[in-house]
């Protein structure tokens, strides 16, 4: 088997033991490639555990810009975990490379003739160089990155620059880290033919892009969007959203004179209280949010129904993980679409936003507050673990300094004073289904009302009168139609060549779907494509489906939830919407999407229900 050869198009996977400090070393590799101008996609596959279990970190380098998961075997495996050795060597693509710590010889039954196997004496080098066990552990990771620099031709100056940036605050650590890099680099140069067939070459394909995780983007977006009150409960994989908010707010939001905080974060006793805090604060005129994951949304559902019916803004970031129930808490899925769309009993529906990149996560995190205030209803941003906890390549974050927060329809004391007619909290004065609201304490004698989850008339008074109840339910539906015109539009991604076939996707499925559609096009099958960014679906989504005879709906859950939502909202003939699904907990891959669509095109409807 001829060893693989590729410049700037391959997949490297690191196999480590979690809790050993490998994450920062692996990131060093990813960032080095990125700083050499090569687009990368980095995926952390980690266990729900703090220490001792296998963890993997996969970096896709792609000058072509394919930064989603590719699928197929790994081109270059760096195995630093004896526990997963057998599985790791088996996952190498034919012609690929396997680098391992050769403290013990590779068991004969695992050896493969179709790959290149390189033994790197990591433990031996560490034992020779370092006395302290802790240092041996830490530098082992840095040494293999050094070796990798020789093996795939990383610009060593870039690596050194990254180390210098990383330890800007602790400069005395720069020297020892660079030394460890050199140990690995020199060993590889002396003992192997460097570089391998796989190598990096500086290019200019990253432009002004950044590498950021989606949770950081959400936390920053909440600061920029003007959130002041946060109620939350810790849950993987959303917790770092709150960490970011708290840290960044502490850095940018302290009153210059008193040093006091222009924000408040409360870790609540559970998710019910977390969303209760958000609703109480929003009712009282502050911008407020919570971040959670699927199990949290399940618990918050009763309150979400209250906010829908009593018409209280609320912002919720759901970083989806693999369900059902506790599921796989550190694996990704797009499994909460239906849960969030219809959360709570009775006829309820909620505005959802689906970001695909950190930049979009930042934008939607801030936009969600404007939408929630304008529509006086909960708005949920549906991220997932893949976007949230991985460093994703993204356009840079931007903000328009002229932007004003849209606080929606709120009457001031002066407005109330000048009002001739009687104030009615739920009166549809403007015909958009949205009433005017007042904050508590606005005016001594005008504008007070009683907020309730029980049925109420236009003046917020309790009623059990069917006609009045129907009137308010119909007005809420009218508001839903207004929401359709305000949410982010769906993006047309490919158009004009697909004829009667199209594809729909959303969120983190985007990168892999784009690559798969490119491959299909190269093979002669063009599909039109649209990326959904919000629910309720704007008009263009309905038009896109109407314009095609067959639409592939690509998503990461078993039950084709977005497809169900489209069928339910538009009354589309289900036969028209073909399920293309992956839901194993790892990010969906381009190979998988390509193969499933190709098989459907070949076999027709028979494959429709094959996930």
């Amino acid at each position, binding site marked *: 088997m001829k060893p693989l050869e590729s410049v700037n198009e391959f997949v490297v996977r690191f196999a480590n033991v979690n809790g050993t400090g490998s994450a920062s070393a692996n990131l060093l590799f990813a960032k080095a490639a990125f700083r050499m101008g090569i687009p990368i996609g980095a995926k952390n596959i980690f266990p729900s555990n703090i220490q001792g279990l296998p963890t993997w970190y996969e970096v896709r380098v792609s000058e072509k810009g394919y930064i989603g998961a590719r699928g197929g075997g790994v081109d270059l495996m760096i195995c630093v975990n004896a526990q997963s050795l057998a599985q790791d060597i088996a996952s190498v693509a034919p012609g690929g490379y396997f680098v391992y710590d050769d403290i013990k010889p590779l068991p004969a039954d695992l050896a493969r003739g179709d790959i290149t196997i390189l033994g790197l004496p990591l433990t031996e080098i560490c034992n020779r160089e370092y006395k302290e066990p802790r240092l041996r552990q830490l530098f082992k990771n840095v040494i293999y990155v050094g070796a990798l620099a020789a093996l795939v031709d990383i610009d060593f100056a870039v690596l050194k620059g990254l180390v210098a940036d990383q330890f800007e605050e602790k400069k005395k650590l720069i020297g020892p880290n660079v030394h460890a890099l050199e140990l690995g680099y020199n060993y590889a140069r002396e003992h192997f033919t460097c570089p391998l067939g796989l190598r990096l070459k500086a290019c200019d394909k990253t432009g*002004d*892009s*950044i*590498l*950021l995780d989606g949770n950081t983007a959400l936390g*920053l977006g909440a*600061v920029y969007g*003007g959130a*002041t*009150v946060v*109620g939350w409960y810790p849950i993987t994989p959303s917790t770092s959203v709150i960490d970011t908010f708290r840290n*960044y707010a502490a850095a*940018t939001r302290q*009153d210059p004179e*008193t040093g*006091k*905080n*222009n924000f*408040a974060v*409360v870790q*609540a*006793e559970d998710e*019910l*209280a*977390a*969303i*209760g*805090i*958000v*609703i*109480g*604060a929003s*009712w*009282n*005129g*502050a911008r*407020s949010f919570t971040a959670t994951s699927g199990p949290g949304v399940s618990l918050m559902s*009763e*309150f979400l129904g*209250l906010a829908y019916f009593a018409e209280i803004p609320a912002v919720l970031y759901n970083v989806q993980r693999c369900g059902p129930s506790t599921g796989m808490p550190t694996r990704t899925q797009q499994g909460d679409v239906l849960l969030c769309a219809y959360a709570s009993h009775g006829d309820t529906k909620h505005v959802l936003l689906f970001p695909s990149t950190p930049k979009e996560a930042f934008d939607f995190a801030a936009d969600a507050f404007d939408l929630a205030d304008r529509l006086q209803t909960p708005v949920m941003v549906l991220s997932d673990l893949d976007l949230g906890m991985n460093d994703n390549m993204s356009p*840079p*974050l*931007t*903000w328009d*300094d002229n*932007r004003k*927060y849209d606080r929606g329809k709120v009457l001031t004391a002066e407005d109330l004073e000048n009002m001739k007619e009687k104030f009615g909290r739920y009166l549809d004065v403007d015909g958009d289904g949205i009433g005017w609201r007042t*904050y*508590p*304490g*606005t*005016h*001594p*004698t005008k504008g*007070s*009302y*009683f*907020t*309730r*989850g029980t049925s109420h008339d236009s003046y917020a008074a309790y009623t059990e009168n069917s006609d009045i109840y129907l009137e308010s339910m119909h007005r809420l539906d009218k508001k839903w139609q207004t929401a359709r015109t305000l949410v982010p539009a769906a993006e047309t991604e490919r158009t004009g060549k697909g004829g009667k076939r199209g594809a729909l996707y959303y969120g983190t499925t985007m990168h892999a779907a784009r690559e798969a559609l490119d491959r299909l096009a190269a093979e002669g099958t063009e599909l039109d494509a649209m990326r959904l960014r919000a629910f309720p679906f704007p008009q263009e989504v309905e038009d896109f489906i109407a314009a095609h005879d067959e639409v592939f709906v690509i998503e990461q859950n078993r039950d084709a939830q977005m497809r169900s939502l489209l069928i339910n909202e538009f009354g589309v003939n289900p036969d028209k919407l073909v399920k293309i699904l992956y839901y194993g907990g790892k990010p969906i891959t381009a190979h998988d999407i390509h193969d499933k669509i190709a098989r459907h095109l070949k076999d027709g409807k028979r494959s429709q229900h094959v996930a």
Partner: protein
Amino acid sequence: MSYIIPRFRHPCTVPNDIGYTRQDYEGALSTLCAGCGHDSISAALVQACYEMSVAPHLVAKLSGIGCSSKTPAYFLRQSHGFNSVHGRMPSVATGAYLANRDLTYLGVSGDGDTASIGLGQFAHVMRRNLNMLYIIENNGCYGLTKGQDSATADVGSKTKHGQANVFSPIDPAGLALNIGATFVARSFSGDKAQLVPLIKAGLHHPGFALIDVISPCVTFNNIPASTKSYTYTREHMTAADVVDFVPAAAKYGADGAIDVKMPDGATVKLRRLPDHHDPRNRAAAAAAVLAAQERGEVLTGLIYIDTGRPDLHAMLETTETPLRALDEKALCPGARALDAVNRNAR
């Protein structure tokens, strides 16, 4: 439905210091059963707020679900009210208080709302020392679903259906002391003379103030075999302290009472009973509650007070300006700050 609202007003109705008459503190017509203890509590709230010259629009009324939680509609009609979901009023109050620290927060809950479905939120709102008055209208039963036992029902206490409760009761006041609530009181809906000053003191307390008000359910639980009936409560009540609340400006003479100074100069005036505790001593307060329980008595009055503890805003070191009043200028770091964020992410 109890009564029609009487049109007749006492000729002596006079405006208070800020120009409001007592009528201005009233609300919609109560839809609770005639004779319900809860209506007496609403009346006590009206009286207390009127006498204290509280501006009604600067009060936010919050409640959960149940008979008790309906009552905020029946007083302070110029206040915003929020009838939320069952057992979750404390979290809504927490958010509301964080949004605007300048309003007065009044929560009304029941024994089911507080001690069963909402026990967790009740416990945690006390840990946060949220600056609010939290009133439990405690009748030992579920009224709206027709008389089931609640978690505050005493062992052996019987409902109208004749079954004796076999489960250990939760005493909200005892629990509050254990968790560290800074104002713990108990009263009786039939004793307005005690309840009104307690409400005033609770509204004034700079932290979480709990008043557990025994409020008999006339329809489902006012029978001799119930320990939350009018008869039982009247016969077994023992007042820890008789309370008066003296605003900062008022003068009063020395009469052997314990005076608890509020941080703003107001005073809660308590008469010490010989065999009882000092309400500033938490351990003694807890012991007194337990001792009364063992004697089968209901200890009422101000059981414990500590005005020196930081409330939630102080603990979180939030700014003095209500958070909801901050605009883009105070909240948004601006485009330039993102340059550094982007730079660090390359």
